[in-house]
């Protein structure tokens, strides 16, 4: 073993400690610069504005200036302590270097002495061994002295590090005016600082800062104000402290809601995995959580087709126990906050989290990826929205599932728009009974939607496209001639008829049934490479000129020869 192996340096390097000192000094310089600028600004303000309100601002500025000024000296002081510690460490390293040399010299001398003894032919064997033992004992004693000195050096450095830590803590403790500077741990929260600034404190009180998040249903504008009034630390604490409330709060950026919902997701999983036994309900809960986690990972494992890195996945809504544990989830493929285009996929009957999320996420991934390829200059986020209690056949017929779902859909559409940094081109895509839910939402409420796509629709809850309150030409219909559900006319007019007033696009699938309607053809609208998917994407990216229009249906479904009367029935689908 060499000296450098046997005798390590102190854990910190002088250059690193000096670097921390330099950063403290630079921060102090910035704080000093801000103080000077604040004084100039206050003078400028006083010059231009006098009166009671001006005095209020002036007092606030004076307080702010005092606050920043209180930072300058402690930072300089801390920098000096750190520099002193860096010197101590540097000296310690020099000492260690000396000890290492000494160590290596001792080892070399021992080797030389031992070698000389071995080669000395005049020494008889036993005597040679006695001499060698003496040499070894002597060397061990001398090495022990070196080790002891090395430990003393390290102890000296550790003690100085503790002293420096106390001095830096004391400096931090003296930052806020009125603090004792006794070296007690600094736990100042932003609220301590804000309390010293009356106008800011009043503004934060007015925005509701300091209490729990605003209750559900608070207008998104107020939520946004509340969020903006929090400091970044407070925002992080809110995400960790109230993940359920934050995750469901419309008006917050999608990334924030996603962070909260994912925090909740991981917390739920940890909670459930820690239990020794699970009830049936708990089993479903855990299954839902693991499925959502897997879908998020699935999206993030893909690359943006335009080469912008991993695809973003956001968990906009998550409540695994909603609707009798069927679950509520909204998973976005793409960054909703910054996307130029946002599309919501609204699924139909019987769609619940465990049964439909994987397929719906796959559809969303295809829409986002195809939109990116189709329109490389723009970004698209597609939301797999399992946000309502999708009914079974009986509930769909007898109940008001579409109306209840419409309320939830509208809330989520408005929430996305309120939290987004840009105004996205917003498309709602309803499949099957999802088109009834989407149509009901657009019929009854202001949604901010630009386009709606109805695919495989059993009726969109209205008789005419204009009842959806969109400009003419912004209601689109995809209806495969082989899809039996699309002929039902059950929840409003079949939108593939000319009299409905929508734009019908081509949606025949190459794998469609050869000659008759087939329930399998109800689920092919998002198939990879299909003309339906291409046309849906053209709507999502507002590329209206590229949409392949289809002829409208006649009023009669089956002709006397039993062949479907849809003019699309005889057209060969694009491949």
């Amino acid at each position: 073993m060499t000296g450098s192996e046997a005798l390590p340096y102190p854990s910190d390097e002088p250059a690193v400690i000096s670097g921390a000192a330099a950063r403290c000094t630079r921060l102090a310089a910035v704080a000093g610069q801000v103080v000077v600028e604040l004084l100039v600004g206050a003078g400028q303000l006083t010059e231009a504005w006098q009166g009671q309100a001006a005095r209020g601002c002036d007092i606030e500025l004076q307080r702010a200036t005092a606050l920043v000024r209180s930072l300058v000296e402690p930072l300089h002081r801390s920098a000096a302590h750190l520099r002193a510690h860096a010197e101590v460490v540097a000296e310690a390293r020099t000492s260690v270097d000396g000890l290492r040399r000494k160590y290596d010299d001792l080892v070399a001398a021992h080797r030389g002495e031992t070698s000389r003894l071995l080669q000395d032919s005049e020494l008889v064997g036993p005597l040679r061994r006695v001499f060698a033992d003496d040499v070894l004992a002597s060397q061990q004693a001398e090495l022990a002295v070196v080790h002891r000195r090395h430990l003393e050096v390290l102890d000296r450095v550790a003690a100085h590090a503790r002293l420096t830590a106390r001095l830096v803590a004391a400096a931090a403790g003296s930052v806020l005016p009125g603090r004792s500077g006794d070296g007690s741990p600094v736990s100042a929260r932003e609220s301590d600082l804000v309390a010293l600034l009356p106008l800011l404190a009043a503004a934060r009180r007015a925005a509701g800062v300091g209490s729990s998040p605003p209750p559900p249903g608070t207008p998104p504008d107020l939520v946004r104000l509340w969020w903006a009034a929090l400091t970044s630390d407070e925002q992080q604490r809110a995400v960790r402290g109230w993940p359920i409330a934050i995750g469901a709060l419309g008006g917050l950026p999608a990334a924030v809601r996603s962070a909260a919902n994912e925090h909740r997701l991981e917390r739920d999983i940890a909670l459930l995995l820690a239990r020794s036994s699970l009830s049936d309900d708990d089993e479903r809960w855990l299954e839902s959580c693991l499925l959502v986690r897997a879908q998020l990972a699935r999206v993030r494992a893909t690359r943006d087709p335009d080469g912008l890195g991993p695809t973003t996945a956001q968990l906009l809504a998550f409540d695994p126990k909603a609707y009798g544990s069927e679950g509520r989830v909204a998973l976005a493929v793409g960054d909703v906050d910054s996307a130029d285009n946002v599309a919501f996929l609204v699924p139909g009957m019987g769609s619940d989290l465990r049964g439909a999320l994987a397929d719906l996420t796959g559809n969303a991934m295809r829409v986002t990826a195809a939109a990116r390829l189709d329109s490389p200059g723009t970004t698209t986020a597609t939301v797999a929205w399992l946000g309502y209690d999708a009914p079974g056949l009986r509930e769909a017929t007898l109940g008001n599932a579409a109306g209840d779902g419409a309320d939830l859909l509208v809330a989520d559409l408005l929430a996305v728009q309120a939290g987004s940094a840009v105004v996205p081109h917003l498309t709602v895509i309803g499949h099957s009974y999802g088109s009834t839910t989407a149509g009901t939402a657009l019929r009854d409420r202001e949604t901010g939607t630009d386009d709606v796509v109805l695919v495989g629709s059993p009726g969109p809850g209205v008789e005419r496209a204009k009842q959806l309150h969109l400009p003419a030409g912004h209601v689109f219909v995809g209806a495969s001639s082989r899809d039996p559900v699309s002929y039902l006319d059950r929840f409003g007019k079949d939108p593939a008829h000319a009299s409905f007033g929508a734009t019908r696009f081509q949606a025949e699938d190459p794998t469609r049934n050869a000659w008759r309607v087939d329930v399998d053809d109800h689920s092919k609208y998002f198939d990879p490479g299909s003309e339906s998917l291409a046309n849906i994407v053209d709507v999502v990216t507002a590329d209206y000129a590229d949409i392949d229009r289809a002829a409208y249906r006649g009023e009669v479904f089956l002709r006397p020869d039993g062949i479907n009367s849809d003019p699309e029935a005889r057209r060969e689908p694009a491949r």
Partner: protein
Amino acid sequence: MRWHVRVQGDGLLAAGSRLEELAWLARDRLGDCARVPAGLRDPALREAVRALADLAGDLLEVLADDLDLLATKVRSGATVYDHVEGSVVRRGIG
């Protein structure tokens, strides 16, 4: 009670801009605070330096919020003043 109010719209706007720039400067340095303890290994020393840097970061962030608020107030005050001044001039008062 008589209130004395004197306002120079241009001066207010300039002051508002200065406050806004300072808010930006303060916010821009938040990342520097996070980097202060980088590389330190001694646990006690690292914790103390981190606490100081956190405090500096919190202070700069609160300051930036405060300056943004003041800048908004000052700017809106200037706008109101310009509006009032315009009305006064149009009506030939004073």
